[in-house]
């Protein structure tokens, strides 16, 4: 890799300039390649109802029907309880999934806890998908939520042990950062099961399990 970037090192007299040049080049290069390679007309036509003609204001959608995430702009004005639960799960996943990703190098000393963390992510994704697609009934949703809690507790327990056993202070600090994120999410999770249960309050699941989550 060093050979590859020799010219960047030689052109600048310090490494910051070389890094900026390299990152700037790759950033532009990638954008150009994607701009050239992507069929934007086809992508747009797949979204717009008129197939990509003049853009018109979208029709108001049924709340929660798109499974859209509440993002940086906060909840949409007509966000339903389901939207809010979905956004909550989405937010946790956005924090936890990068930690559990095989592409992420965990701090030294972290081992088995990542397995539990990966299980938490899978379960959250499953719960999120099941709720927004209305594929879960109340007991199944509650069971998934309990499994999420259980696996997160397990991940925290294992990671705490790994932190204590870590040899270097730097690794202990890094594991501490991860643990802080996990504990914060675990705390926010306390009212998850009641919130999920309330989603089903209006459905009579004993006579007809469909729709599983009130629309």
């Amino acid at each position, binding site marked *: *890799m*060093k050979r*590859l*970037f020799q010219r*960047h*090192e030689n052109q600048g*007299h*310090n*490494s910051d300039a*070389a*890094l900026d040049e*390299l*990152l700037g*080049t*790759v950033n532009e*290069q*990638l*954008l150009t*390649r*994607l*701009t*050239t*390679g*992507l069929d*934007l007309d086809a*992508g*747009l036509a797949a*979204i*717009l109802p008129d197939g*990509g003609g003049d*853009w018109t204001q*979208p029709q108001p*959608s049924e709340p929660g029907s*798109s499974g*859209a*995430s509440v*993002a*940086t*702009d906060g909840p*949409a004005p007509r966000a339903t309880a389901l939207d809010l639960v979905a956004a909550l799960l*989405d937010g946790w*996943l956005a924090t936890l*999934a*990068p*930690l*559990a990703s095989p*592409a*992420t*190098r965990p*701090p030294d000393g972290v081992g088995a806890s990542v397995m539990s963390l*990966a299980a938490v*992510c*899978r379960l*959250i*994704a*499953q719960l*999120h*998908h099941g709720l927004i697609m209305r594929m879960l009934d109340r007991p199944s949703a509650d069971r998934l939520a309990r499994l999420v809690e259980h696996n997160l507790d397990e991940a925290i327990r294992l990671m705490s042990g790994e932190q204590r056993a870590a040899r270097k202070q730097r690794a202990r600090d*890094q594991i501490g*950062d991860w643990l802080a994120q996990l504990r914060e999410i675990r705390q926010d999770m306390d009212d998850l099961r009641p919130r999920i249960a309330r989603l089903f309050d209006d459905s009579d699941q004993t006579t007809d399990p469909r729709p599983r989550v009130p629309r």
Partner: protein
Amino acid sequence: MDFAACYRAEMPALVRHVMYHGAAEQEAYDAAQSAFEHAYQVWETIRNPRAWLRTVAVRAYYRSAVRPETPTDSLPEQTSEVSATVGAEDLEQERAVLAGLAALPVKQRQVMAWHFDGFAPAEIAQALDIDPAAVRQNLLKARRNLKQLLGIAGREGR
């Protein structure tokens, strides 16, 4: 900005942003497209489309990445048409930088991805819900780590 104009202007950069989070090109495209599909439904309520799209697209990527039924081994290969537009060295550089970003700790990778897209530390802090000082600190650490990972550390880094 209307939706179609935003799509044309932002889609490639959005795909690139998701790639900086570790996604393969096709995964990044799917996540970006899914974010625009959601955006279309709530377009009038979005105040900052660039930040909104990035947050939603990255979340869509993470969801698809951990969903067990996602067939990760059947993703299409990069098309030869696209590969042919860039030189081998450029492609190698690109892969090396993406690999370098993937090797960074999570927060540093996230901060770098937003930084690459021209967001200021205060905006990044808001999007990632962290302190602006933590953004600056993570940027510094990410740069230092990237220099090492890419083998371009100067004298001061040794």
